[in-house]
């Protein structure tokens, strides 16, 4: 447990020393502050009677808008943006954890301690996850608090959207760890993981692609790849659906197919990363 805590602490110390994380928090803070200062709402009896954006009146067409619906609409749309932003930034902040550990002259220092390789790798993974969770909590939590402060409306579902994003991050970081263990390169880990992220989104249209390809083999390959890779498009849809609560025309996803298969992808990636790391000669 002591070794685990020391390893996690090191992940946080490293993150705090890196410009990327500092930039992430600065940008997030800037975004949150602008959002907090720019929007001024005039709420009468739970409905929006007037709004100002950057000090200018927003034309509401003379109608009173239900505040709860407005906030839900905003949070629903914003959760889609957060899914992409949160996932990308979390990957960016954690993809270096394995390649840096495996650097010549560094790995010996860690492996010469009485810590098993599996434990060492998993402690860095959990450190990375805690870091990603802290980032997401800061961004999502702050927005949620500001919305509550400005409107008095609180939707806990918006916070739950962060859990889906964290789940997606956990599966993708596991894959980035696998690539990191094999290649020892942060750049390659990031490129391959981002590529998988977008490729998997394309595969959500698997039936259309399968219909367009010339052979049955290719069609089956596309369908197989869809089930192998994480369901990034559906996870984004799942986040939005969770936040909207089934309103705004976003249909929920099949939990077993989407979350189950993505979880399996992450689990197999992490298992393979651990297996390769524990057998590698340094």
């Amino acid at each position, binding site marked *: 447990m*002591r*070794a685990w*805590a*020391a*390893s996690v*602490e*090191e992940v946080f*110390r*490293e993150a*705090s*020393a*890196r410009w990327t994380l500092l930039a992430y928090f600065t940008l997030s803070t800037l975004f949150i502050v602008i959002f907090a200062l720019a929007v001024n709402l005039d709420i009468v009896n739970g409905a929006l009677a007037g709004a100002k954006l950057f000090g200018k009146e927003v034309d509401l067409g003379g109608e009173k808008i239900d505040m709860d619906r407005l906030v839900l609409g905003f949070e629903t749309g914003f959760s889609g943006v957060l899914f992409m932003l949160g996932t990308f930034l979390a990957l960016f902040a954690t993809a270096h954890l394995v390649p840096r550990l495996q*650097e*010549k*002259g*560094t*790995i*010996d*220092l*860690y*492996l*010469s*301690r*009485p*810590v*098993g390789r599996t*434990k060492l790798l998993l402690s860095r993974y959990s450190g990375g996850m805690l870091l990603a969770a802290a980032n997401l909590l800061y961004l999502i939590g702050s927005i949620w608090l500001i919305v509550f402060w400005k409107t008095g409306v609180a939707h806990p579902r918006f916070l739950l959207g962060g859990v889906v994003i964290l789940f997606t991050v956990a599966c993708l970081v596991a894959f980035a760890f696998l690539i990191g263990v094999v290649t020892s390169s942060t750049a390659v880990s990031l490129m391959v993981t981002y590529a998988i992220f977008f490729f998997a989104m394309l595969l959500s249209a698997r039936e259309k692609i399968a219909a367009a390809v010339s052979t049955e083999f290719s069609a089956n390959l596309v369908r197989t790849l869809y089930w192998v890779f994480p369901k990034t498009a559906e996870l984004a849809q799942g986040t939005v659906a969770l936040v909207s609560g089934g309103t705004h025309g976003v249909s929920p996803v099949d939990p077993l197919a989407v979350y189950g298969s993505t979880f399996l992808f992450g689990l197999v990636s992490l298992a393979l990363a651990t297996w390769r790391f524990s*057998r590698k*000669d*340094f």
Partner: protein
Amino acid sequence: MTPVIQAEGLRKVYRSRFGTRRVTALDGIDLSVGPGEVFGLLGPNGAGKTTAVKILLGLTRPTRGSAHLFGIPVAAPESRRRVGYLPEGHRFPGYLTARQTLSIFGRMSGMERAAVKSRIPELLERVRLSDWGDVKVKKFSKGMTQRLGLAAALVHDPEVLLLDEPTDGVDPVGRREIRDLLRGEAERGRAILLNSHLLSEIELTCDRVAVLRRGKVAAEGRIADLTAQGSRYRMAASPLDDSLVSAFRESGASVERVNGHLVIGTRDLAHVNSLVDTLRARGAMLAELAPVRSTLEDVFVDLVRTGEAEEKTQ
């Protein structure tokens, strides 16, 4: 006495990515180091020294053979609980201060936070980094990084130290301090395995050495025994004419004239006595006969050259 470090028949073959090329880094070496012993591992580049140390730490798995620390197989992380390691060319995370580095690596060795915290000032004092405890490692010079590495190896008070080029980049005063520190640790019963290119350092620090050549142990023993093996003698006699030198050479001795005396390489003690008999039979007077001790460097160079000559003849 039970050895603290023990390796038997260690063999390591590195294969290229597709298995097309094979390089034998170690070819069946045996090692044994007892408590309180300072053992030096020598050899030219590529002899297998670092591979041997990496196997002892579980960083690399042997192709064949076995290695134990305190009787525990090196594959088990538990075998490293009482081991301190200083790798060559180590790179501590530059964003950590010296104090943070020792705290993190101390706790990774199983120490409690409070125990590490109380030990750090003493350790920094021992390696002369007291004033640098709160400075980030990236600001350190090479010698300071090396001394921090030594402190990190000692942080959990290990019973075995495996040190790869511990004085690399350290100034002469610092070297002496590190030597004294290592001797002090040995006197406390710590076993030390030292891997260094600096033969003078090895000669001053180690009790016993093994010279590796092409993955095999070419020589092993106490430094005093290895350096005395040359059977070379300094002889002063009168007269020392050319016919006497020729007679010595005919007997199989190597003879060198140095500043009015001879340096003679002999096979054994009987050979030396026969040369003295030859000298007396020719009516010469023996003035001085003393063994010439080789330096560790002489032994090392001879072993390496002998190996190269053998390879050429094969």
